[in-house]
């Protein structure tokens, strides 16, 4: 992902750093932009459609369990469940295609740096492997905490898991939706395989997002109860420096802090983030419990 673009409001920007080498402690907290509005919207579309897809998908996968049947009857039976599933699938597909187009437009045609490689790219590199091992050493108290760049290895994993998940789940889903059409170039047993792949990959996504992503990103002590940066786009200088020291230092070294600096997140946006975020986490954890109970209890 690239640096945020110059759409940041600059009116409230304090004086730029006098010297990158000696950052003076500012009198009040400074805020930096991490995610652009477009990126925040992308995440919002992603997680709202994902919640509906997960809920309706699980009802279908665990169609024998009592809660699934009750939920389905509440919303109008299978027809309604499948309608919501397909509706959200279309929106998510659209968002995915816009994102891919955006990546290629910026990386290939606008020749923007840092899309496909480098410290700001989502593409994994050797440092990620080293960070993973260093992180484990730090977990076990055998070494210092690794210094992360703009995207840490687990964030890249989240991104690619979702990326390939969407390709796999999307393709198998559309194969079932338009089965006779897909059967023109796929063998019949591929339609059987599509359901297995779709449902297993979907379950993986649900378990991963609600059990791993939620904890790593929101519920772990460092960001508990929630990391608002994906909703507000902004994070404080203290958080920035602590979480991704390499990116922070690189920003200062390149003298680009002025382009990143922004105003504090307004009160309404934080409250909005709280409501939306906690709702999403609550729904997600409920679905997680239902999925686990249906998977293990039957």
């Amino acid at each position: 992902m690239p640096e945020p673009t110059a759409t940041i409001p600059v009116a409230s920007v304090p004086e730029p750093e006098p010297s990158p080498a000696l950052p003076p402690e500012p009198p009040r907290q400074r805020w930096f932009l991490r995610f652009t509005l477009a990126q925040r919207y992308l995440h919002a579309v992603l997680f709202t459609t994902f919640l509906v897809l997960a809920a309706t998908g699980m009802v279908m996968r665990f169609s024998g369990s009592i809660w699934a049947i009750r939920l389905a009857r509440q919303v109008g039976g299978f027809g309604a469940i499948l309608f919501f599933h397909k509706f959200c699938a279309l929106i998510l597909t659209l968002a995915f295609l816009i994102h891919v187009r955006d990546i290629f437009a910026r990386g290939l045609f606008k020749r923007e740096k840092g899309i496909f490689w480098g410290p700001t790219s989502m593409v994994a590199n050797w440092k990620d492997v080293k960070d993973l091992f260093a992180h484990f050493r730090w977990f076990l108290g055998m070494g210092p905490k690794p210094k992360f760049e703009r995207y840490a290895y687990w964030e890249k994993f989240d991104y690619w898991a979702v990326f390939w998940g969407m390709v796999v789940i999307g393709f198998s889903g559309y194969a079932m939706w338009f089965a006779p059409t897909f059967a023109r170039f796929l063998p019949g047993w591929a339609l059987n395989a599509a359901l297995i792949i779709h449902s297993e990959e979907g379950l993986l996504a649900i378990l991963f997002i609600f059990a791993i992503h939620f904890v790593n990103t929101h519920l772990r002590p460092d960001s508990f109860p929630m990391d608002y940066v994906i909703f507000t786009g902004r994070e404080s200088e203290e958080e920035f420096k602590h979480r991704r020291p390499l990116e922070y230092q690189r920003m200062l070294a390149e003298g680009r802090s002025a382009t990143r600096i922004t105003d504090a997140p307004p009160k309404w946006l934080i409250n909005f983030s709280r409501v939306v975020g906690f709702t999403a986490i609550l729904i997600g954890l409920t679905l997680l419990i239902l999925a686990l109970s249906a998977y293990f209890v039957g």
Partner: protein
Amino acid sequence: MKKHFSIGLSLVVFALFPVWTARPLHAQSDCLSCHGTPGMTDSSGKSISIDADKFHSSIHGSLTCTNCHTNVKGYPHAANAAQVDCSTCHADEASGLGASVHAKASDHPCLSCHGDPHQIVPKTDASSPVYPLNIPKTCGNCHGNPALAKQHGLANVYGSYMDSIHGFAVSKEGLLVAANCTSCHGSHGILSHKDPKSPTYRTNIPGTCGKCHVGINQQYQAGIHGQLAAKGNPDVPVCTDCHTAHTILEPTSAEFRMQSTPVCGNCHRDKFSTYRDTFHSQLGLLGGYVQTARCWDCHQAHDVRPASDPASPIAPANLIVTCGKCHTGANASFVQYQPHANPRNRRLSPALYYIRLFMNLLLASVLTFFLIHTVLWLVRSHLARGNGGKHA
């Protein structure tokens, strides 16, 4: 037999030979001179009053009282008349009844169904308790009584029948040809369904239902179930296994479609379990989508044949038509879809088995790795916070 005298004939005889025919008529009017009094009761309070008009218009109106009350010879007569024996005239019915499940009934066996003995009308008369449209209510007097059903170890079936497609046809549409109790069970010679001579004995059921459902019975007999049933195989389904005996639903109704697949699954367990893995089953279980393929949508309901039979709808050559009933545009590749695939069986579905195995391993490895990662991280973060740092 005396009942064969018609009322018309007796009137003619009466007009031509008044003296010769006077005695029997006198006998009836003699009796009615006392028993015609309304409200007359015996010493125990039981009514012994006869409505002369109703008796005369009944099917037995031409008979004299002593034809049935044979122990009454003259007046005065004994206080307790002997119980009337209907078998004197109705010998066939009585012998059937004597061998039936109702043989030991404590009440007079004939009157429980035929009603007041002095007002019996032909069964074609709409006021008769054994008129086809009245039969369910008549039988229901006992068989709709939960206490009685419990006492005799019977299912209390009257309510189920009345809510069934047959019951509705009788009660709502007044359809004379709709099956009532006697259509299947017979009337006088009702036998237990455990008796091989009973029309409701398991192997006789297709023939019993087939009396009306001739076309369906032909299809059934042509199919694998009917052929095996004809060979005396007791395990194959007969009509009532799928449709039930009394609670028979309209087979195209959502209620029947949604509940009936497990019926086939009672025997075809492996096919049912693999069906449950598919989208077709998920659609059905969640409700609101009645069209989803149930067993007989592909296999036929009555003329069920194995896929090796070219006349079967699931024979390879017929699959495009069969699947195409719902899936517009189904082609030769599409119908290779296995509606009973079993990804747990490596021998039957190797490709699906390995795909499922791969997906499960992927799921397990990703989740295990990140679970360990997350737990270690949480523990470390808590320790670091304990050391005084806000961030960890």
